[in-house]
C-alpha cells in the first residue's frame, strides 16, 4: 500500500526507515555527496514539509519511497540541478510538483513484472501518478539518470526531457523530465505493471483528497 503523508502526520518509525533507506540508496550504493547522520539521509528540502509517498508492505516494512515538492518554491531542479535547464526557463507552477529521492528497498522485494521492472517500483510510480492526478496537477518534473530513465520507460511512464543532459560526478548522464499525470499516463503505468487494480492508499492526505 501507499502511504501519502507529510512529516508532521507520518508514523515516526516509517519516516526513520525512509531516511535510512535513502542513506543506503544514495549515500552507500550510489556514492552521492549526500548528508548522512546516524545512518539517515536528510537535506534542506526535507525541512520545507514535502509530501512523502511510501510504499509499505502488510508488516509495516518500507519497500520504496519518494518525496514531492512544489516548484513554486525551493526544489532540486531550481536550486541544485539548474545546469540541466540549459536554455529552458525555470519551471514555476502550482500545477507542477517535483519528485525526488525515489528509492527502492532492494532487500525487501525482488518480484518483477513481465517487463522486468521491480513490482514495488511500479506500485510506487502508479501511486505517484495517481496522487498527482487527484491533487489537480498537470505534470510532475523529476531529475533522473540513464538507468532510472530506462526503468521509467519500461514502467509505462509518459515523459519528455526538459533541458539538456549533464554528466555529474558519478559519471552518469543526468536529465530533467516532465511527466504526464493524466488518465492516459495512469493507464499506461497500470498496463505496464500488468495489473487491473489501483494501489491501496492510506493516510490523512489521501482521505482529504477523497473526502465525501
Amino acid at each position, binding site marked *: 500500500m501507499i502511504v501519502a503523508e507529510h512529516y508532521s502526520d507520518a508514523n515516526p518509525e516509517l519516516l526513520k526507515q525512509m531516511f535510512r533507506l535513502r542513506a543506503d540508496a544514495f549515500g552507500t550504493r550510489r556514492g552521492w555527496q549526500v548528508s548522512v547522520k546516524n545512518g539517515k539521509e536528510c537535506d534542506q528540502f526535507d525541512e520545507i514539509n514535502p509530501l512523502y509517498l511510501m510504499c509499505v508492505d502488510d508488516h509495516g516494512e518500507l519497500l520504496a519511497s519518494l518525496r514531492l515538492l512544489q516548484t513554486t518554491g525551493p526544489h532540486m531542479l531550481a536550486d541544485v540541478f539548474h545546469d540541466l535547464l540549459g536554455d529552458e526557463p525555470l519551471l514555476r507552477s502550482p500545477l507542477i510538483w517535483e519528485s525526488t529521492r525515489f528509492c527502492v528497498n532492494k532487500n525487501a522485494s525482488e518480484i518483477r513484472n513481465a517487463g522486468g521492472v521491480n513490482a514495488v517500483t511500479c506500485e510506487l510510480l502508479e501511486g505517484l501518478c495517481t496522487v498527482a492526478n487527484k491533487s*489537480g496537477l498537470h505534470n510532475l518534473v523529476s531529475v533522473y539518470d540513464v538507468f532510472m530513465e530506462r526503468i521509467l520507460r519500461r514502467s509505462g511512464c509518459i515523459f519528455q526531457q526538459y533541458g539538456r543532459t549533464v554528466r555529474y560526478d558519478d559519471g552518469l548522464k543526468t536529465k530533467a523530465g516532465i511527466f504526464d499525470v493524466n488518465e492516459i499516463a495512469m493507464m499506461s503505468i497500470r498496463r505496464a505493471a500488468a495489473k487491473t487494480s489501483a494501489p491501496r492508499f492510506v493516510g490523512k492526505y489521501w482521505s482529504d483528497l477523497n473526502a465525501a
Partner: protein
Amino acid sequence: MKNLLGLFAETQTTFQDTGQAETALEDLKQRGGLSDAAFLITNLPTTDGDGTYALSTYSKEWHKHYIARSYLDIDPIVQNALTRITPFSWEIPNPSSELKKFFGEAGEFGISAQGFSVPIRGIRGDIGVFSISADLSPKDWLDYRKEMQSEIMLLGYYYYMACLDIDFPENRDVVLSPREYDILSWAAKGKATFTIAEILSLSPKTIEHYLASSRVKLRAANTTHAVAKAVRWGLIDPLG
C-alpha cells in the same frame, strides 16, 4: 459558483498595497458567490514589518476575536498550511474540543465551515495560503472542488504573486523564454496548437506546455487572455 480564476485574472493581477489586495478578495467574494475569501502570508523577508499579513473578507469583529484569543496558534487552516504543501478542505475528522469551539465561534460570526485552502511555498522562504469558503450543499461543494481544484490552485498562486508585488516590485517582471515568445506569437496570430507544432517541429504536447507556462508567468486565465496581456505589455508583437 462562477469561474473564480477568470474573475480574478481578468480584473487585476497585481497589487500596490494591502488595501487593493483586500478589495480584490471582497470582489471575488461578491462576484464569485463565495461565503468568504482569505489570504495569509508569513515569513516574508521584508525590511519593515514582521513579514506576515492576513487579509480576508471576514468581519472586523471576528478578526478582533481571533487576535484576542490568539487563534493563529490553533487555527487548523493556518497550521495545516505551514506544515503541508498539499491543497486541503477544512473538514477535520475528530476535532478536539478546542477546535470544535473554534469552528463553533467562527460559525457564530457567519463563517462557513465549508472551505478549501491552497498552501504556496515561495522562493524567499515565505509561505502563503489562499482560502475560499462557500455555502453550498455538501454534494455541490464536493463536485465544485473536484471540478475546479486546478483552477483554484492557479487562482491561489496568482493572488499570492499579486501580493508579493507589494513588497517585491521585481516580482512583476515577466520574461518570456525564446520558445514561449515564439509559441505565444503564433497563438497571437490565431494559430492552433497543432499548427504551431508543425511550424516549429515540436510535439503538440510541448506547445501546450509552453502555453501553460506563459499563462502562469502572465497570470492569465486562458491563452487568449495571455496573448492580450503579452501584446499590451509589448512582450510580443502580433504584427511581426
